[in-house]
């Protein structure tokens, strides 16, 4: 009874692309991927011996496994690299930024100038979505700046950003879109709060719609 389940997991792990590309179940690997090219090379080296193993078993898999399409993984690995790319800060030029998640837990990071909050959050596996890929066309990377003074130090949000913020849940006076806040030295010590990704139910959810 346990055999197949166990082997199911083993098979998954045996395919390196799965592990590096599957950001859904392997958040750990994402962090690994997104940092620097040096790390990516490491991944590539690791994958060589496993790659061979994949090819030996793939014929069998194709015959009997409909769900495991080994070919598709190459596709996702690139997407994983592309998202949330940040540059490691140079020594002495680190900028401090902190995120408070929906449970109030604080995460501190040292980042370099020019990175935006969405990329920083995604590179560090914080719960922040960028449905439009950071192009200011949705409101999923909504953040709330904790300190109004820090908010005033930032550049005014553009009309486009404000248009999107208008659609964000739990909009506040100091709301911004993560993808539009680009870190610079003036923002050192910035603290932002991530609103909950799920919404508390409201009475209006149960009212009949016309």
């Amino acid at each position: 009874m346990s055999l197949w389940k166990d082997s199911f997991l083993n098979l998954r792990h045996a395919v390196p692309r799965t592990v590096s590309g599957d950001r859904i179940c392997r958040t750990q690997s994402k962090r690994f991927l997104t940092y620097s090219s040096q790390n990516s090379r490491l991944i590539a080296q690791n994958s060589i011996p496993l790659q061979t193993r994949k090819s030996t078993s793939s014929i069998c898999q194709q015959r009997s496994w409909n769900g495991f399409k080994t070919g598709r993984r190459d596709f996702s690995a690139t997407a994983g690299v592309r998202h949330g790319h940040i540059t490691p800060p140079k020594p002495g030029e680190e900028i401090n930024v902190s995120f408070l998640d929906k449970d109030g837990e604080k995460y501190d990071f040292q980042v370099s100038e020019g990175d935006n909050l969405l990329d920083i959050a995604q590179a560090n596996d914080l719960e922040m979505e960028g449905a439009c890929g950071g192009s200011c066309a949705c409101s999923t990377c909504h953040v709330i700046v904790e300190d109004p003074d820090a908010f005033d130090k930032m550049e005014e949000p553009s009309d486009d950003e404000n248009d999107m913020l208008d659609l964000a849940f739990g909009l506040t006076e100091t709301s911004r879109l993560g993808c539009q806040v680009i870190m610079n030295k003036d923002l050192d010590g910035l603290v932002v709060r991530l609103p909950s990704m799920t919404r508390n139910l409201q009475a209006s959810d149960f009212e009949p719609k016309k």
Partner: protein
Amino acid sequence: MNIQRVPYICTQCTTQIIRTPLRRSQRHLLPQRVWQRHNSHFVQTDRPFRVAIVGSGPAGFYAAYRLLAKVDDAVVDMYEKLPVPFGLARYGVAPDHPEVKNCEEKFTEVAASPRFNFIGNIELGESLPLQTLKPHYDAILFAYGAPKDKELGIPGEKALRNVYSAREFVGWYNGLPEHRDLAPDLTAGESAVIVGQGNVALDVARILLSDVDTLRKTDIAEYAVDELVKSKIKRVHVVGRRGPMQAAFTIKELRELLQLPSVSFEPVRKELFPPEDVMASLPRAQKRLIQLLAKGSTNDPATSTKSWSLDFLLSPECLNWSPVHPYRLSHVKFSRNELDPSDPYISSAKVMPKHLSDGRRAEVNIHANTFFRSVGYKSLPLPGLEDIGVQFDTKRGVIPNDGFGRITSPVNTGANEPLPDGSIISHLPGLYCAGWAKRGPTGVIATTMTDAFTTADAVAADWSGHRGKGSLLNGPGHSSGLGWEGVRPEAEKRGLRATTWQDWEHIDAAERERGQQLGKTRAKFGRVAEMLEVVN
């Protein structure tokens, strides 16, 4: 458990792989729990949590994403009517909003999970009964959206020429196979009337008013470009029943229309805007929208080639055809409304008919050669929903649910649970809904994402509370846990050809290649047969 039931396992491969230990250098790639399980003789007695998601639009994909992240052993099978995924992200988002379609990248990542299967070209309820799914899954999540649109119910609406549904028009220019043959006639004259003031109405207006050469480079259907080139439409009326404070469109869409080059905007009458003191107390979003509306467009009507207007407080009465050319639409008759004077500036304000001093209803005719109705999408029950115990709420146009996405039974046929306030809620275990099928056809992708996450969290919570007790959906001993592997023989018996994610990748590549030749990002296949030709 009988080994015959187990999906996805090739014993030859598994023995081979079990013998190969995981290298120490690869351990960091796995969560510790899995790593420990792999290296110990931990006996895993339960099987994966098999979930079917019906529909592959943003709601389906965001629910799958969250579920796969939250439940380690969840395996998701996503069923889709078309051979290709993404629903309204592909067929609803306007072609000139490519950045909104970036969510497809996320969905592609989700699909790369080995615990995710895409099963396209299977129309559940039509070509394959829902009943066939039930014994093979632990939970079914409905995220099939809103496949129809609301009608006005006015005389002349059903005419075959010059009168269109905005939903069908959007499907047509986006290359949706269902509306491939809509062939709207845009050459009947200069004036178009759109009834409804939501974002779909503004999308239609923008497509009609935009420069075709800008659209040509997008993934808009080529046949649509051919028709739009011939279009004679120069004046678009976007008509609403209520006032500017009640309009449903969002500010981004309005701003885009106001900024279209060589398109002028007829200013909105000042008396429709709230007085200063009311303006000051408005919520930010509404205030900004009204301010933008009051500012209008800077384009000079004298030098503009096209123009548009937002016409408020008008209800359509009937469509009228030309007495000279009985096949040509000539005008639309509207009756005037006025806002409930008790509170005319709230977004839920009601309207009442406006009467003239002699007691007759105030009416107005608007010249129209082409007419679009755009008064909202409508969700329908999937055929066979009642067979699995779900009673669709036709009045609200949603699947009845508890707000978290658990499907409820209005007649208390499910598992009754008392709520803190003493009332009873009747859940149908293992059945969930998300997206427009759950909350009605409103909101942007971000709204659907939040909503799909809520549902996925409910599924995850129910499963963790139920772990080890068998299926959520079926009673003990009545669930095979086979998922698609169990459904496939039924589908094959009916001669259905399911498409896989790999098939979609081939179609995707073919579409991009076709697009490249035409100088655009993608040239969609307009017919299902053309899509299947690529993969067969």
